[in-house]
C-alpha cells in the first residue's frame, strides 16, 4: 500500500465560534452538504478506498447518522475518537494513531474545499522521494460582506512567508509572521545552496500534507511537537539544510548519540531505507541534477527534501473563518453536478429562484418568494413574499411571510418572524427574530453562547 489518508476532523473552528458553538465544524453545511463531505469526496475521487478520520465523539455520532455521508461516501471510514477537551494539536492526533499508520500518510483537514489535482502533490512526493509534500494556493480576496463585522477587515491574519526555489517546487523557507521577531532571517547555508529564492506571502496553506512514515515515527518520539502546520512543517523545512542531516558519515556518530536522545538523530536514522546502495548507484550514474552552477550533487546531497505544489487556478478554500465559509458556499455548487433544486423540495410555481441558488431537500418554498444567490438548507420553510438574497439559510429554519433577508447567515432551527428585515446579520442557532425587526450588521446569538469564551 502506498499511502494512507488521514482526515483531521477534531478541530473546533475557533475562528468562527458563532457558527460552531452548536454545530461542530466538520458538520457545518456548505452547499447543503456537511463540510466533511468535501475532503472525503476529494479522496474518493482520487481513488482512496479507506480513510482514517480523527474526530470527537460528538461528531462521530452525528456522522454515523448523517445520510449524506453514509450514502455518498463509499470509502471505508475508520473513525478514531479523541477527547474533546484534551486540546490535541494535529501532530498530537497523528501520534495518537501511530499504530495504525503503516505506510506514508496523506493528512487532510476537514475544512478543505478544493478541486486540485492531487496527483501533482503526490507526484512530487514520489518522484523526488520527498519527506514532505504539501499543497498551497494563491489566496483570493474575499469579496462578500461578512455579517457582523464592524469596520474594515483587519489584516490581523498573520502572514506566512514561503520561500521556494527557481522551479517553484522545492520548499526552502517557511515562517509565520508571528514567529519572526524583527525580520525574515534566512540562513547562509540556504543562500549558498539556492542563491535564487522566491519568497511569497499571498498563499493559502491547504493543509494537505504527504508525510513519510518516518516522520510519524519521529513524532512518536518527540512529544514536544503538537501542530503539524505550526511546528512540524517549519521544523522539517529547516532541517533540510541543517548540517547533521547532510553528511552521510554522521550516521556512525548518530549511533553513539542515541543515548543522548537527540531528536535530530532519530529522524536521520529513519530516513535511510533498504537497498540504499542501489539507489546511490542510480543517482551516481544518472545525469540529472536539480540545480546547476555549483559543484554539488543532486539535491546537494541532502536526504531530507520538502516540496510544495502551488496552485494557480482552481478552487481551494479553507473554511475556518466566516468570510471563507460564505465564499465557499458561493462556489461549492461548482464542485458537484447535483441539480440546484433538490427533487424533494416543494417549490411553488410563482417563486423566482435564481440559477445560482441551491434548495435543499424537503424544503417548502411558498409563492411570490424570490431567492437569489442563496443556499437554502434541508427542511426549511419559506413562506410567501420573502426575499432572500446572497444569504445562507441552514437546516430547519422557518422564515415567515414578508421577510427580507440580505447577505446574512441564518443558522439551523432559527425562526425569523414575519416582516423582519435582516441585513448582513448572523443569526445563531435556534434563535427567534421577532416580527418586524430590523437588524443590520449584527451577530444575534443566544445568551448561553455569550458566556463561552
Amino acid at each position, binding site marked *: 500500500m*502506498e499511502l494512507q489518508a488521514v482526515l483531521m476532523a477534531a478541530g473546533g473552528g475557533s475562528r468562527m465560534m458563532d457558527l460552531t458553538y452548536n454545530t461542530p465544524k466538520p458538520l457545518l453545511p456548505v452547499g447543503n452538504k456537511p463540510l466533511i463531505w468535501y475532503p472525503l469526496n476529494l479522496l474518493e475521487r482520487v*481513488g482512496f478506498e479507506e480513510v482514517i478520520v480523527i474526530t470527537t465523539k460528538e461528531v462521530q455520532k452525528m456522522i454515523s447518522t448523517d445520510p449524506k455521508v453514509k450514502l455518498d461516501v463509499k470509502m471505508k471510514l475508520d473513525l478514531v475518537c479523541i477527547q474533546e477537551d484534551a486540546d490535541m494539536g494535529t501532530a498530537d492526533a497523528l501520534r495518537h494513531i501511530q499504530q495504525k499508520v503503516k505506510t506514508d500518510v496523506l493528512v487532510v483537514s476537514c475544512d478543505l474545499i478544493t478541486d486540485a489535482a*492531487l*496527483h501533482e502533490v503526490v507526484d512530487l512526493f*514520489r518522484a523526488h522521494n520527498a519527506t514532505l509534500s504539501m499543497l498551497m494556493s494563491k489566496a483570493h480576496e474575499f469579496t462578500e460582506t461578512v455579517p457582523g463585522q464592524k469596520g474594515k477587515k483587519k489584516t490581523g491574519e498573520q502572514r506566512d512567508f514561503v520561500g521556494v526555489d527557481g522551479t517553484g517546487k522545492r520548499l526552502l523557507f517557511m515562517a509565520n509572521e508571528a514567529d519572526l521577531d524583527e525580520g525574515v532571517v534566512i540562513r547562509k547555508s540556504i543562500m549558498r545552496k539556492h542563491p535564487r529564492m522566491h519568497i511569497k506571502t499571498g498563499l493559502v496553506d491547504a493543509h494537505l500534507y504527504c508525510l513519510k512514515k518516518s516522520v510519524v515515527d519521529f513524532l512518536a518520539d518527540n512529544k514536544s511537537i503538537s501542530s503539524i502546520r505550526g511546528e512540524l512543517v517549519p521544523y522539517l523545512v529547516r532541517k533540510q539544510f541543517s548540517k547533521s542531516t547532510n553528511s552521510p558519515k554522521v550516521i556512525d556518530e548518530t549511533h553513539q548519540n542515541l543515548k543522548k536522545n537527540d531528536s535530530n538523530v532519530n529522524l536521520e536514522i529513519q530516513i535511510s531505507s533498504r537497498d540504499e546502495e542501489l*539507489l546511490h*548507484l*542510480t543517482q551516481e550514474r544518472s*545525469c540529472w541534477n536539480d540545480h546547476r552552477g555549483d559543484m554539488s550533487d543532486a539535491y546537494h546531497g541532502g536526504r531530507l527534501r520538502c516540496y510544495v505544489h502551488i496552485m494557480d487556478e482552481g478552487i481551494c478554500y479553507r473554511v475556518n473563518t466566516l468570510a471563507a465559509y460564505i465564499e465557499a458556499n458561493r462556489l461549492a455548487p461548482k464542485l458537484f453536478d447535483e441539480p440546484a433544486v433538490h427533487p424533494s423540495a416543494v417549490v411553488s410555481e410563482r417563486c423566482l429562484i435564481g440559477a445560482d441558488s441551491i434548495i435543499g431537500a424537503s424544503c417548502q418554498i411558498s409563492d411570490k418568494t424570490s431567492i437569489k444567490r442563496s443556499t437554502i438548507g434541508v427542511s426549511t420553510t419559506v413562506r410567501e413574499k420573502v426575499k432572500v438574497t446572497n444569504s445562507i439559510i441552514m437546516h430547519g429554519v422557518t422564515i415567515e411571510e414578508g421577510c427580507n433577508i440580505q447577505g446574512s447567515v441564518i443558522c439551523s432551527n432559527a425562526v425569523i418572524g414575519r416582516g423582519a428585515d435582516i441585513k448582513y446579520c448572523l443569526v445563531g442557532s435556534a434563535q427567534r427574530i421577532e416580527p418586524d425587526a430590523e437588524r443590520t450588521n449584527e451577530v444575534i446569538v443566544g445568551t448561553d453562547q455569550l458566556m463561552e469564551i
Partner: protein
Amino acid sequence: MADCGEPDGPGNKDDITRSKNEGKELTKEEKQRLRKQKKHQKKQKERKNEKGPSETEKDKTPVSLLPPPQPVATQKAPSALPAPASAPIPVPASAPFHSSPAPSPADKPAKSKAELKAERRARQETDRAAKQPGSSSSGIKTKVPLSELNPVVKRLPEHVQVDDPAVVKRLAKKLERQQTLPYGASNKIPLRSDYGYKVSLFSHLHQYSRKAPLTQLLSIPSTVIHPSIVRLGLQYSQGIVAGSNARSVALLHAFKQVIRDYTTPPNEELSRDLVNKLKPYISFLNQCRPLSASMGNAIKYIKKEISNIPSQCKEEEAKTKLLTCIDRYIEEKIVLAAKAISKYAIEKISDGDVILVYGYSSLVNNILCEAFEKSRKFRVIVVDSRPRLEGREALRRLVQRGISCTYVLISALSYILPEVSKVFLGAHALLANGYVMSRVGTSQIALVARTYNVPVLVCCETYKFCERVQTDSFVSNELDDPDDLMVTRKGKTQLENWQDVSSLGLLNLVYDVTPPDFVDLVITDLGMIPCTSVPVVLRVKNLDQ
C-alpha cells in the same frame, strides 16, 4: 529497443532445453522461431477449451513456424513451398509460409524430431491447399518487402506504428487484458495519449508531454501498479533517472521491491505468476518512457531467471534466490564491467592527450576519472547540445575531480577538432549490424572526427548489445517532449504558441545511429573489438546463456 522486452508466452522449458542439449547454436531466426512456437502453444492451450483441437486455425496474425534447427539441406525442402514472394529460396530458411500450430506440449517429448517435422509438413500441405485463394488477406505484415538475406520482420513492434489506428486500438486492448485484478475498469493500466503535432517523418512514433504524466489516470494509492514502479515511471518521465545504466539499475531496484512484496496466490506457481505480474508493470514503464535496450536485456534476464525457478522451491527461498540473482547481475554486468572497460581504456589514454567526449556517459566519465587517478596527464573537451544540455553535468563531475576541461556546444565541433587527439563516446546500445545507437549528435561527432582522422572509441558494456538491426535513425527512435525546445529569455518565450502555427513542427529526437565505418574501436568488458564483431559477441553471449 523494446523488442527484447516484449512479453513472451510462458516459456516452454522443454523446447529450450532440447535445443540447448543438442548443443546447436541458436541463430536469430531460430530464436524467433522458438518464440513463435511458444506463443502459438499458449494460444493453442487457450483455444482448446473452446473448440476441439483443430489442425488448421486461422490466427489473427500470421505465425510462421519453421522447423526446429536442422542441417541446412533439409530446410531447403519445406521452404520450397510457395511464398508470397516467389523469389529464389534463401539459404537459411527465411521464406515465410503459413502453417498450423505446433503440436501440443504434452506430445513433444514423446515424438522424435523427424516425426514432428513430417507431421508439420503434412499440415502445411493441407494449409496451403486451404488457404491458397485467400493467402494475402491476413498478411498485412508480409507485404513488407522481403530481403533475401535478412529474415523478414513478421510483426513490427507496436511502438513504431503509432500512426496506424488499428495498432493503437490493439495496444489499448492489450493493456486492458493485462489488468492485474480481475474486476473493475479502474484497474486498467491507462493509455497515455500523444501530444502535439508530430513531424510527418516521425509520425509513427509516440510523442508525450511531460506535463501530462501517466499518474493522472491512476488512482493515488496505486493498487494496480506497485508503488515503487509508479515512482520509477515518474522518475523516468521527468528525467530524474536518465542514462542507460542508471535506468537499468533503477529498474532492477524496483523489481527487487516488487519481488519482496510479492506473495504467490493460491493455486499458482511463482515462476509463472510472477512473470505475469511483471507484464503490466513493464507496459506501464514503457508508456512513461520507451524502454532502452539495456532495460530490455535486464528484463529478459529476470524473466528467464523467474521461469527457471523449480516448482518445488519454497516461496521464501525463491525470492531470496531472485534477489541475489539481481544483485549479481548488477554487480557483474554494470559495476565489474565498468572496471574492466576502464582497465582496457586506460591503456589507450596516453600522456598529453586531448580527449573529446559528448554529452554525459556514465561509463566514459568513469574511465576518465580512473585514468586521472592513475596519473595520466590529459585534458578533456566536453561537447554539449540542446535541449538536454547533459554535458554540463559531465563537466561538473570532471571538474570536481580536478580534470581540466573545455566546454563547447556541438556547433563549434569543427573548430575544436584540430586540437583533439581521441574521441571517447558512450553508447545507448550496440546493434547487431555494428551500428552504434547513442544520443542524437553522436553520429555527427563521429563523422567530423573521421574527416579529421581522429580515432573514435566507443565504450559499451556487453549487456547493452541488442539483436536489432537498424541502418537509419528514423525507423525506431524516441521523441521527447517538443516543449523542451522552447527557451525563455528575459521573460519572453518565442515559441510559446507553436501549436497555433500550422506549418511548424517541433522535433526533439533522442537517439541516432552511427555507422561502424566511423567507429575505430569498441571497448567492452570482453575486450577491445572492432565494430563489426558485435554479432560475434552476441552469438557467444547466447551460447553462454
